[in-house]
């Protein structure tokens, strides 16, 4: 799947919206939502999220990503994915 990095936030957001309403009137507000604090995901559903993003974007999250504060927001996830897509595999 070929995808421009500009499309990543909307694609990540769409996954959350396919599972229920994401709070926020604008795309920018939705990207800032802390999806754990908003109760959109539990710990088991995180596994589905990670698997979905890895398969969709052809990336692999590393331990350090799970420890980052931005992992908890939709926009932060999109940032991490964009970075992974542009960083050559070690």
């Amino acid at each position, binding site marked *: 799947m070929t995808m421009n990095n500009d499309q990543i936030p909307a694609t990540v957001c769409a996954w959350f919206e396919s599972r229920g309403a994401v709070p926020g009137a604008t795309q920018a507000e939705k990207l800032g939502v802390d999806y754990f604090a908003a109760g959109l995901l539990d*710990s088991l559903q*995180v596994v589905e999220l990670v698997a979905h993003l890895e398969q969709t974007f052809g990336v692999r999250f590393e331990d350090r990503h*799970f420890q980052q504060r931005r992992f908890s927001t939709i926009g932060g996830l999109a940032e991490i994915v964009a970075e992974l897509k542009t960083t050559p595999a070690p």
Partner: protein
Amino acid sequence: MTSPAAVTRLSLCPDVLFLVDGRGDWIASNPLARIHVAVSPSAAELLRRLRAPGELSAALAGLEGLWAEDRTVFGPRRCALDDATGISHEPGRRLAGAEAVALLRERFVLLEDLAAYRERFGPKRRPMDPDRFGNFHQQIGQELLLRQRVKPDDWWVSQKFEDDLSGVKNTAYRKVQHEFLEREVPGWGLAGKRVLDVGCGVGYFAEFFRRVGGAAEVLGLDPNADYIRRAQATFRAPGLRFETFDFAKLESLTAHRGAGFDLIYLSDVLLFYFVSYKNKPEELAGAVGFLSALKSLLAPGGRIMVMDPHGSFSLCGRYGDPAQPLAVLGEYKRRVWGIASTLEPLGRAVRAAGLAVTGIWEPCYEGPVRDAEDAFLKEFPVWWVFELRALP
């Protein structure tokens, strides 16, 4: 213009111990946070200079060849009772200069704010909570789901038993738990008796009580339906039964089972009633209710045997060498990482349930010492076992 480093005041984390590992590297080891970083001799000098808070730029003056390497792993890999200290003995990615300093800050070897660091010790308040380290259950959940990408329920069985459930793997489970039961169960007087295994999992020990103890009837209960299906498919013998069962309904067993049980066995079950225990009476109520329900299921003269992770040593830091293993405790009364009860709340729950402790064992490994794990398990008990009987 002042560089950002020049205005940063840092200090060495007071929880850090320094070790020299088998490769000759200095390890800045934090047994509370279970975080470990190998450092160059010059980085060790930097940390020495920052014993008192100081300007980073001044502390860096004259230091060359600075590097740091994260040596942290989540300890329990083969089994849940593996060494939880979390020191990796494999070389990691070596970072130099400013990146090394950044790693030391990221991994809490160097601190900007001691109070904020202390706040990180506590259970995660939500999945992936980046502000708290979390307790053992939370960390192992994250390890299994996100790093190893395995289902915790499946892993739990595979880390303990052989794939065909023919035996217990050669970990602490066999060296301590299984060997203790092999030594003791023949003397428990189970021949012709009724046994209830509460939290029987995949049924191995329920069958063990029938085969080794000679029990006439063994009923294994577990809330996990997949485990019970596997137990039913694997262990078939007269008098051996397994049922999926919600422990909240234990008292209802009395009504339709008739006579009570001579032995009720709990292995790694009771701890879950104490995980969030904070010395508050209302939090003890769950354990009291559970034990009271078990008591109502006992036959006259019957007993409850509780095998639980040891309140001190089950997940404590393991240091030292096989000649003299060291156990490093960072907590006892205030449980942050540990998940087992300490003695006092356990004793209060037992008493409030109308039971009395009539026996205590602290099983250790009794075989030959081949490595550091054997040495630790020989010196320190990672489970304790209580015999409980009804008060008159």
